[in-house]
């Protein structure tokens, strides 16, 4: 698809998405709009002091929605912190998206409820977890797949490279989904890699695809081809979705220190949502009514999201000791009991 929303023919990938119906396209459009709305709302919540931090995904909606929507509920996602649209697509509840950022919990949701692990903050660590999970799928003889989401910066970490070694060696059904959003905080991707990131994987024996990450349909097709390979015993695939982080790294960041406004503008023109809307309009699918309905949905989601966030309760003091161990631990139990007596004495 061109930035103007005109589809370009591709004999490999077109058949993979030939079955997508107009309703599905419109549903995907709604996803894009909603996740952007959630993202904007979260940024606003942070600015208002309701969240400690927020990592915006502005510009990466197509990469995340386009990939995550291809997964089955029995697949499993291991992501980084920025994949809030992926989490949304996996069915994570709205308020669960912000528990971590509001500081009320270390994890927003139960990973087994949605088939998505608690996001990893240590860059790259989750790629090995995805590989191990996929190894488990293979052992179990099921055709579920594991997907690791990570950024361009993460590709420099030893863990990510070891994940490729293990995935290739064991030929497990894992998909390495790299969103190359051109930045690792202030560092341009050129500092991490002198060649396109997708070129790395083949040397490990892993086929790779470089896809326009701002082109929803292209992302869908690439993901489907990787899933197909994984489900049928073909082993891992590496996908580089080339996209752009249109906002700051997080709400704490000041990108004006290191970005070039001209480049920002260039990428703004390639906005994945505008592009998809142009495409849908070209097909006559995206009517004014539909737009209005989607906007209303997004507003409603945002409202519920905000309410959910503000309604999150602070954890009880003594829960600081919970779940360190799954089995009783004499040392910690004593510490907890002593702190309970402390709280009692000082009247909390």
């Amino acid at each position: 698809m061109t930035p103007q929303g005109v589809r370009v023919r591709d004999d490999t990938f077109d058949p993979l998405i030939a079955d997508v119906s107009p309703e599905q396209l419109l549903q995907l459009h709604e996803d894009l709009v909603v996740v952007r709305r959630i993202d904007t709302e979260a940024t606003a919540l942070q600015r208002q002091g309701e969240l400690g931090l927020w990592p915006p995904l502005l510009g990466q909606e197509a990469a995340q929605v386009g990939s995550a929507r291809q997964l089955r509920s029995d697949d499993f996602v291991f992501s980084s912190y920025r994949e809030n649209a992926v989490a949304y697509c996996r069915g994570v509840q709205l308020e669960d998206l912000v528990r971590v950022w509001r500081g009320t919990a270390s994890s927003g949701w139960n990973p087994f409820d949605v088939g998505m692990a608690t996001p990893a903050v240590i860059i790259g660590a989750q790629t090995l977890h995805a590989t191990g999970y996929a190894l488990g799928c293979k052992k179990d003889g099921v055709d579920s797949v594991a997907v690791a989401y990570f950024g361009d910066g993460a590709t420099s970490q030893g863990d990510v490279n070891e994940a490729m070694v293990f995935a290739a060696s064991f030929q497990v059904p894992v998909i390495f989904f790299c969103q190359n959003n051109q930045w690792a905080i202030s560092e341009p991707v050129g500092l991490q890699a002198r060649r396109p990131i997708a070129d790395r994987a083949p040397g490990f024996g892993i086929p790779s695809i470089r896809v326009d990450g701002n082109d929803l349909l292209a992302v869908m097709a690439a993901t489907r081809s990787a899933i197909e390979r994984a489900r049928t015993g073909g082993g891992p695939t590496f996908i580089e979705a080339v996209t752009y982080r249109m906002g700051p790294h997080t709400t704490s960041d000041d990108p004006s220190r290191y970005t070039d406004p001209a480049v920002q503008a260039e990428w703004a023109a390639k906005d994945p949502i505008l592009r998809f809307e142009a495409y849908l309009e070209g097909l006559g699918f995206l009517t004014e009514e539909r737009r209005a309905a989607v906007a209303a949905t997004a507003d409603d989601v945002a409202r519920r999201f905000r309410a959910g966030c503000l309604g999150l309760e602070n954890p009880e003091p003594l829960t600081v000791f919970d779940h360190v161990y799954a089995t009783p631990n004499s040392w910690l139990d004593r510490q907890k009991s002593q702190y309970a007596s402390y709280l009692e004495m000082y009247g909390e």
Partner: protein
Amino acid sequence: MSEKLTLAKAIGSGLRRALEDDPSVVLLGEDIGKLGGVFRVTDGLQQRFGADRVMDTPLAEAGILGTAVGLAFRGYRPVCEIQFDGFIYPAFDQIVAQVAKLHYRTGGAVRMPITIRVPYGGGIGAVEHHSESPEAYFTHTSGLRVVTCSTPQDAHSMIREAIACDDPVLFFEPKRRYWTAGEVDEEFVGLPMERARVVVEGSDVTLVAYGPLVATALDVAAAAAEDGVSIEVIDLRSLSPVDFGTVEESVRKTGRLVVAHEAQQFGGLGAEIAATVTERCFVYLEAAPARVTGFDVPYPPAKLEEHFLPDLDRILDAVDRVMGRENSLTGWRA
């Protein structure tokens, strides 16, 4: 029912039982398959259970542990072998930031029943990185359990208990005692993994040791007895949590504590034991707890290790110190 086995073989038989008893147990490591591990602890297991359950992995420790985390997410109980103590550090991040924290991080939703086997300690004349005692890095890490063993029976029972435990367990194997033989009964139900064992009763001094130094501590008790000093030897077994109940009870009786370990002194486990015992038994103490440990130097070349390692004489010297007898520090001036 019981059989005479070396400590190494007792661990091997424990692994075999774990593999038999629970299909979710898988072994991961470097050279654990055909070779049976460099110490032959996993000898024969791949042949018996297949390469699917006893897996040789690529040469990358972070990779092994990170893969184990994913397997645990999928319901497996991975048992990872780190070939030698000094090779655990590349996996440090996966262990302390992932394995140790995931249960807490997920609010208890995800369990990490991962066992990490680590042949550890010195005294075998090895080259660098092959004689380390890194336990304190892990005992200081919340979310991990840390255990070690000193007899074949414990080795067998505790590895099985570690694997069956729903928490991650660092299982430190005292490699210089791998060839110690003893009776092993697979059905024997002994002390739970978390409990320390009073190996020798005594009334004058409590001597706490673990892993490779338990045998040395027994020699100390024997030698001291000849000298009229009655030593109570405690084999700690669990290093995190420490069974302070057992230690305290002993110190309340003896009034004196000596702790011995091979690891370096500064910030070693001995410091925690001395500090906690002092907190809890202050009024019972006749003397300050003494520590006998490796020196605060990197593990030295083989020809110097006898000086680095706490031995019978150095521990006896510390016993003299807490007994108020003449000892090497009597005339010493800082």
